[in-house]
C-alpha cells in the first residue's frame, strides 16, 4: 500500500466519523414565541420589571427610560445587544465556518437580524480581548463544547436592553448561552451577569424549531434614521415622575412592588408576600392572544 493511499484511507475514515462530543447546530431555527409572547413580539408592558434581579441602580435607570430614546439616531440601534437573540421575536440562522486547510470548525455563526448584530462564536481557542478593549454592538464571543452542549460566552457588548421596556444591561455585562439540541428542537439557555445593574444572574431559556424555511435576516442590520428628536435632547423621566409605573397594577392587578422587580420576585416564596394584595382582574383588557394569533 502506498503512502498516498494510506493517507486517503485515513482521510475517508476520519471524514465518516462524527466529531466526538459535537453536534451539528447548523440550519434555520424558527422561533416559537409560546412563552413571553408579548415581550418577544410587540414588546413588554411598560413598568413590567417582574422577575428582574436588579439592584437600585438598575431599577432607577429603568424608571428613567423613555421609549422615545429609540427615536434618537444615536440610540435607535445601539440598544440591541446580543441579548436580543433571547428576548426578540426572530428565528436563528446558524452555520459553522471551517478552516479550509484543517477542516476544523473555527467559529459558529448566528446571522444578524435587523437590530441584532451577527454573533460569531470563536471556537479556535482565542482569548477574549483586554477588558480595556473597545466594546461593540456585536461584542466578542468564544465557545467550547461541553459534551453535546455548546457554551458561548459573550463580553465586550455595548449597553443594551435586558427587557425591551427600559431594563438595561451595562457594558460590563457577560452573556453565557448554552445551545442544547434535541432532534428538531434547539434550546438556548442563557444568563446575563451584570455587576452594575443586577444582584444575581438573570436566566432565560428559549426553544427554537428546525425548519426548511430559510431564516434569513429581514434586511441589513439596523439603519439609524432621524425620527425628529431634537438634537441634544434625551427623552427621559425624572425620578418619581414615570407615568407608567403602575401600568401592571392597572392592567393585571399585580401589586406595584412586584412589578418593580428585584431578585426575590423570581422565587416561589414571593407569592406569599403579594397574596393578599393581588386581585385577579375580571377580564383580559388588551393583548389577549387566542386562536387568531399568539
Amino acid at each position, binding site marked *: *500500500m502506498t*503512502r498516498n493511499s*494510506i493517507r486517503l*484511507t485515513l482521510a475517508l*475514515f476520519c471524514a465518516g*466519523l*462524527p*466529531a*466526538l462530543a459535537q453536534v451539528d447546530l447548523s440550519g434555520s431555527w424558527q422561533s*416559537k*414565541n*409560546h*412563552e413571553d*409572547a*408579548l415581550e418577544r413580539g410587540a414588546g413588554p408592558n411598560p413598568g*413590567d420589571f*417582574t*422577575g*428582574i*434581579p436588579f439592584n437600585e441602580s438598575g431599577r432607577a435607570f429603568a424608571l428613567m427610560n423613555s421609549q422615545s430614546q429609540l427615536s434618537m439616531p444615536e440610540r435607535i440601534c445601539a440598544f440591541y445587544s446580543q441579548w436580543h437573540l433571547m428576548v426578540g421575536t426572530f428565528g436563528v440562522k446558524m452555520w459553522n465556518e471551517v478552516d479550509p486547510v484543517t477542516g476544523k470548525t473555527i467559529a459558529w455563526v448566528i446571522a444578524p437580524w435587523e437590530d441584532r448584530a451577527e454573533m460569531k462564536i470563536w471556537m479556535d481557542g482565542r482569548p477574549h480581548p483586554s477588558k480595556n478593549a473597545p466594546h461593540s454592538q456585536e461584542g466578542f464571543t468564544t465557545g467550547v463544547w*461541553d*459534551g*453535546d*452542549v455548546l*457554551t458561548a*460566552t459573550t463580553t465586550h457588548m455595548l449597553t443594551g436592553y435586558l427587557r425591551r421596556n427600559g431594563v438595561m444591561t451595562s457594558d460590563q455585562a457577560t452573556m*453565557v448561552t*448554552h445551545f*442544547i439540541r*434535541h432532534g428538531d428542537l434547539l*434550546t438556548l*439557555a442563557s*444568563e446575563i*451577569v451584570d455587576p452594575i445593574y443586577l444582584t444575581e*444572574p438573570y*436566566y*432565560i*431559556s*428559549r*426553544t427554537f424549531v428546525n425548519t426548511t424555511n430559510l431564516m434569513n435576516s429581514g434586511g441589513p442590520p439596523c439603519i439609524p434614521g432621524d425620527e425628529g428628536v431634537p438634537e441634544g435632547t434625551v427623552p427621559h423621566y425624572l425620578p418619581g415622575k414615570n407615568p407608567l409605573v403602575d401600568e*401592571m397594577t392597572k392592567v*393585571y*392587578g399585580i401589586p406595584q412592588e*412586584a412589578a418593580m422587580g428585584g431578585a426575590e*420576585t*423570581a*422565587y*416561589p*416564596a414571593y*407569592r406569599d408576600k403579594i397574596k393578599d394584595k*393581588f386581585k*385577579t382582574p*375580571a*377580564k*383580559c383588557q388588551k393583548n*389577549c*392572544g*387566542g*386562536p387568531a394569533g*399568539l
Partner: protein
Amino acid sequence: MGYRIFALIAVALSLVAQPPRGGRGGPPQSPQAMAPIDLTGYWVSIVDEDWRFRMVVPPAGDYMGVPMTAESKKVADTWDPAKDEAAGEQCKAFGAPAILRQPEHLHFTWQDDHTLRLDTDAGTQTRVFHFGDSKEPAGPPSLQGDSVAAWEVKGGGRGGPPPDPNAPPQGKGSLKVTTTHLKAGYLRKNGVPYSENAQLTEYYDMIKEHNGDLMLVVTIVTTDPKYLREPFIITSHFKKQADNAGWNPTPCSAKW
C-alpha cells in the same frame, strides 16, 4: 507500515462502537446506575418568564402565546375557578403539561433503580418516570399520566476516556420523558385547556454556570390535536439547592 495503520483504525473503530456505559459482557446496568446526570435533590424554579401567567392567576381571556384552536377558546372562555373548586377540580392546572410552570420546588428521588420520582411542593403532586419495561399498568387517565423515561447519551460517551466526574454536567446526557394517558386539564391557571388526547414530551438537561450555579433546563412540548394548532413549546428552568430550604407542600388551588 500499512498494517499498523489498519490496526490502529480497527482499534479506533472498536472504541467508537462501544456502548455508552457499562461495557459488554456483564449484566446490564440499571437506569439509576447508568444515569449520565444526577437529578436527585431539591430544585427551585426561577420565574422570570411568563411571570404574570405563573406567579399570579391571569385574567380570564388572557391567552397570549398559546396556539389555541377555536374550540379551545370556547372552552377557556367558560373558565370558572369557583366552579372548579366546588367540583373538586382545583388541580386542573397542576397536571403534567403545566406542573413545571408552577412557582415551586422540585424533589427528585429514585423510587427504585428503574423508577425516578419527582415531587413538587406546588399542589403536592408526584410524577413517576418509568424506565424500560417497568411502566405501570394503564388505569384510568390521571393528572400526571403515564411517563416513560429514557436517558439520551450522545457523542460524549463514545470511546475515549471515562467521563470526568468533576466535569460540568452539560452535554453528558439528557433525560427524555414521554407522558400519555392524561386526564384533561389546564395549560394555564386561567383555564386554557388540554384534552385527554394530549401528549407530553420533555427533555431534562443540566448545565453549570460560571458562578457554580447548577441549573436544570426542561424543554416541554405538549401536543393536542383537539385544543392546540401546533405543539406548545416552552422551557422552564430551575436552580439546584443544597437542601430542602423553602420546601413547602401546598394543596392545589384554582383561585391562587
